[in-house]
């Protein structure tokens, strides 16, 4: 029986060493391995079935060379005898052939069962792990999310988990099978002939030595290759997205030279890697050839002398053919185990990411609110430097507050504190007198409608995007919300109306339309408090009017905290808070602030007036006013 493979690769892809992710870390982290195997626990019975199946499979496969030897011996002796002895010999030979067939059939079923079980367990565990990661990502605070980065988190849940999938389906079972084969062959050889067995084992230390030396050379090369490849990919990605700039600045030659350098580095490193990964298999082949010859010569002499049958010799050769491959794959498996531990560590790092914003013990549901928001001596920062210092502000229900001030003054930080995207350092934020840290997060955030500067749309239908505001809303309610913000007619004008799919991040819609959809979302949610970060990028004049009107309607009757970029929004606000360096430097209504001739006056009149006055100076004054 031929094949030694226990591989149950679900993909039909051919895998060669150069495309395998071999993150050869410094060692194995036992702790994360143990934790990883914890994920196998719910499936321990299936795992036992798989182990049993692979044991049957391995034993069956190991029996085959011996059976072949017995058949050869039986045939030889039957050939030499005659009469009834020959008949008896033939009959026992047929029984041996029967056992041989039984073994093959047994191996077939065992292999099938083993394959089906392990892949199932593997996929299941991977699923559990991904879901755990996803659930945790929902709870991670925005600050950690910003720090970890979306790209990195996606690669955790995508690539790192996939690395583990290989380990769990192929690796664990394969490791077990390899060890079983190794031990099985050692036992089988010893049972067959102690002397020949010991002779074969003498080769083993050389083999292990070769593998160890190989690893020492290979590890740095593979690491360098990974680095070079990712550099090249990074540079390509950047160049492709910046191609217009490259061409505008005629950088083609310089950039190509740089690309070529990186490309050459990949090429030369790969040339080295190629030499290394071409060396190992022939080395093993050489050793197993040597072992075969030793057995053939020594065994052959013994057979001639009569101490050994040809069948036993044949069986030995069969075993030698399989003896060295587990040693080699064990080393490969060690590599994949290492890259798996690296992946596992990265995954557990995310899972262990502390949730800075969670429900406190004893948190209660926020009861129905009227919508008063109070900042009391609030100090807050992202790193060690505070961006908001001792902020005090009370916003009465139904009031619209416009936050104005230069970039980096702390406007966004202030509004992010209210839905508890971040926690204050000191002081407190209260809604209707409830400290927001004492109520449950879910009940708190239900109170808000939020419109961000960069409107986020999911790649689903427009209708579903509006419905995100209230999941159980009927189609009529969705349409009513769209009507209220003035986007209904536009949506209806599309060939598939509310069922129109919007592309990734809302592509295909203009900035203004996206804003209107996010207003509709808030209308549908009908929250008591609205948080709005107005878009700075200008939309065309007609849309602008619609957006302003929609905004007015959305904010009506709700408490609103607005980072304002439109003068109309500011002027209509019930309260303007001028923020500078994390403090409120002025507050009041528009007219009051202008009268005060302070920071607000400077901020807004200066920019507008200067331009106007310049124009006035150049033109006839009466055409302007």
């Amino acid at each position, binding site marked *: *029986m*031929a094949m030694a493979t226990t591989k149950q690769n*679900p993909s*039909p*892809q*051919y895998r060669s060493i150069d495309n395998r992710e071999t993150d050869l870390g410094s060692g194995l982290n036992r702790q994360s391995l143990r934790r990883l195997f914890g994920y196998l626990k719910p499936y321990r019975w299936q795992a036992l079935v798989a182990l049993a199946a692979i044991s049957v499979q391995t034993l069956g496969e190991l029996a085959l060379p011996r059976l072949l030897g017995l058949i*050869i011996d039986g*045939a030889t002796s*039957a050939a030499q005898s005659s009469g009834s002895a*020959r008949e008896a010999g033939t009959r026992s*030979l047929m029984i041996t*052939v029967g056992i041989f067939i039984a073994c093959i059939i047994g*191996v*077939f079923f065992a*292999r099938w069962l083993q394959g089906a079980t392990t892949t199932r367990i593997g*996929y299941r565990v991977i*699923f559990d792990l991904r*879901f755990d990661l*996803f659930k945790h*990502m*929902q709870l991670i605070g*925005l600050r950690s999310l910003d720090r970890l980065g979306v790209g990195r*988190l996606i690669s955790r849940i995508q690539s790192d988990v996939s690395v583990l999938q290989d380990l769990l389906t192929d690796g664990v079972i394969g490791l077990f099978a390899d060890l079983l084969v190794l031990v099985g062959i050692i036992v089988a050889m010893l049972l067959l002939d102690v002397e020949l067995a010991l002779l074969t084992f003498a080769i083993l230390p050389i083999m292990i030595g070769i593998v160890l030396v190989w690893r020492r050379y290979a590890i740095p090369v593979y690491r360098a290759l990974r680095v070079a490849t990712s550099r*090249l*990919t990074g540079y*390509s990605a950047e*160049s*492709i997205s910046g191609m*217009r700039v490259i061409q*505008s*600045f005629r950088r083609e030659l*310089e950039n*190509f030279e740089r*690309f070529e350098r990186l490309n*050459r580095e990949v*090429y030369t490193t790969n040339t080295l890697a*190629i030499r290394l990964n*071409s060396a190992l298999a022939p080395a093993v082949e*050489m050793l197993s*050839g040597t072992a075969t*010859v030793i057995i053939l010569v020594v065994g*052959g002499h013994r057979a*001639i002398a009569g101490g050994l049958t040809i069948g036993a*010799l*044949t069986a030995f050769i069969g075993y030698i053919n399989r003896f060295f491959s587990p040693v080699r794959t064990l080393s490969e498996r060690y590599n994949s185990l290492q890259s798996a531990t690296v992946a596992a560590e990265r995954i557990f790092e995310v899972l262990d990411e502390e949730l800075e914003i969670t429900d406190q013990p004893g948190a209660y549901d926020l009861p129905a609110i009227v919508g008063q928001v109070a900042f009391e001596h609030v100090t807050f920062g992202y790193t060690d430097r505070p961006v908001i210092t001792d902020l005090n502000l009370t916003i009465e229900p139904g009031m619209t507050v416009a936050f104005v001030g230069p970039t980096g003054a702390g406007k966004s930080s202030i509004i992010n504190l209210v*839905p508890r995207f971040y926690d204050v350092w000191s002081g407190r934020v209260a809604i209707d007198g409830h400290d927001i840290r004492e109520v449950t997060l879910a009940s708190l955030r239900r109170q808000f409608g939020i419109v961000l500067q960069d409107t*986020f749309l999911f790649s689903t239908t427009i209708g579903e995007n509006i419905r995100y505001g209230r999941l159980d809303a009927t189609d009529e309610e969705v349409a009513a919300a769209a009507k209220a913000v003035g986007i209904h007619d536009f949506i209806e004008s599309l060939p598939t109306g509310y069922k129109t799919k919007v592309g990734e991040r809302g592509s295909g819609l203009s900035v203004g339309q996206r804003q209107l959809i996010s207003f509709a979302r808030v209308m549908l949610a009908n929250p008591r408090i609205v948080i709005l970060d107005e878009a700075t*990028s*200008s*939309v*065309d004049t007609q849309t602008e*009017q619609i957006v302003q009107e929609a905004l007015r309607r959305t904010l009506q009757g709700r408490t609103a905290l607005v980072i304002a970029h439109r*003068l109309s929004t500011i002027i209509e606000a019930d309260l303007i808070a001028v923020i500078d360096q994390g403090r409120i430097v002025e507050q009041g209504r528009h007219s009051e602030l*202008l*009268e005060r001739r302070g920071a607000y006056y400077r*901020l807004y009149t200066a*920019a*507008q007036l200067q331009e106007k006055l310049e124009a006035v100076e*150049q033109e006839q004054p009466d*055409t302007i006013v």
Partner: protein
Amino acid sequence: MTEQYSVRYLVRRLFMLMGESPRMTIVGAITILSSIGFSLALPLLIRTLINNGVATGNMRVVTELGIAIIIVSFLSAGSAYLRGVTTQWIGERVSYGLRNRIFRHLEALSFTFYDSAQSGQLLSIITEDVRNIRRFYSPALRMLFQTSVLLIGSAIIMFTLDWKLALVVLVMVPVLLAITLYFGSRVRPRYLRTQRQFGEAMSVVQENLAGARLVRAFGRERFEEAKFLAAGDALFDRQIEASRLSTFANANMPFITGIGTVLIVALGAWQVINGQLQVGTLLAFYLYLQQLTDPIRQIGPIMNNVALALASTERIYELLARRSLITTPATPHTPTTVQGDVQFREVSFAYSRGGREVLRDISISAPPGTIIGLVGATGSGKTSIVQLLARFYDVSRGQVLIDGVDVREWDLPTLRSNVGFVLQETFLFSDSIRDNIAYGRPEATDEEIVAAAKAAQAHDFISRMPEGYDTILGERGVNLSGGQKQRLAIARALLLNPRILVLDEATSSVDMETEREIQVALATLMAGRTTFIIAQRVSSVLNADQICVLAKGQIVERGTHRELVELAGLYRRTYDLQTRDADIVERLALND
């Protein structure tokens, strides 16, 4: 695969690429042949050792053949090593060359191409597709060649040894092949479905993370979990569906070879009993069957590799076949000094041939040093005008002249080095601030860079950074604010010192306060240059010598600010609307 290229054409392409390294190709073929030759010899030697040595009691034969086997297995190992190195090297060499060619080609393609191209797709051509092609040479092509030589060689040897047993083995081969190919073709679509579903599950994750703020704001964590769970469940089902077949197929292959072995062993034993076969020959057959099984099992995956490589070759050659229509003419206009006189003469333009005209009969005259304002709503054609100026696209009708010469007659690098852009979105590379400023002129001295930064009002904030001009920007570096980025872009344009300047919504993505800060820098930049200002805010073009108001690709109004206000048309209406708020401020302030 879109059937644009025939399979034969693509395969020929792949072979031609290999032919670029003829010596290695020959060495590769020789090493494959020799390594196969040696591995075919081994079972024969073992057979002779047993039949003529062990079975007949001839010690000398045993020893001699033992030495021969060692020599052959060493030779076999040596040629296997060379085989591995050469065949993989060919793949590596081809990928290296292809990557260079693709990158160069991408640099040469015009904006028209990038309008419709997806950058993710282009990146995957330069990474994934090139890798697929590398795998065509090794393992795919090598294995196919190797396997056929092995098959033919062992068939010949086996037939000379014992034709009856040979027939049994050779009947197995087509059965194995058929099974591999059958399961391969059944598993592949299921596997593709799995991948697609995987992509879907991952896009749920991606959207969820990108929209994290929204998810949290609406408290939709549970809803998102349910979404992910549904996608994950579907993925799991697909995976199981695909693996059910592949695990069966995986178990099947050794089963078939096992049956073959049984047949050989049983038939062989029968012949041995009858004295028609020697045991050594039986062993040799067993060894040949073993040698053949693995390569045949690999044919399924190998054919997958080939299919992938063909699809990738097609994608790459499709890309390489794209020609840029915008190239320097044979006898280009390369003036030593440029005045900056710009004339648009009845220019019409469509992004694609026969497509909707985004510009119609545009005529603009901009003498050196003048400021032209282009205003209009989104999609009115403002940006198209300035892109024609630097010949990122060619006009459909009419002419764009710089210093009286049609831009199509200009040397392209000379033309573009005389047009500087400051765009709404500043593209900075993840490189040092210094390199980003010197982007248009890599040879600029440090003094020049600092001088440009100073003039752009950027020197102060750069100096405040911990590493000054060496500060690395981008994903792994420092993030700049919109105003800071804009000032770097201005410094970049200043250093380039172009005669013609384009400000495309240069200040629209920054707030008013920041806009005021960069106005000073912009004024420095514009001094003495022909400038095109594109803006939606009327306030940005008040000082222009000529303002062109665009609507639906046509200039509907034109004149100075004063003239246009008097005209009381579209411009006036827009102006009134946009300045209404400002007027309120103004009146309130003046009444105060």
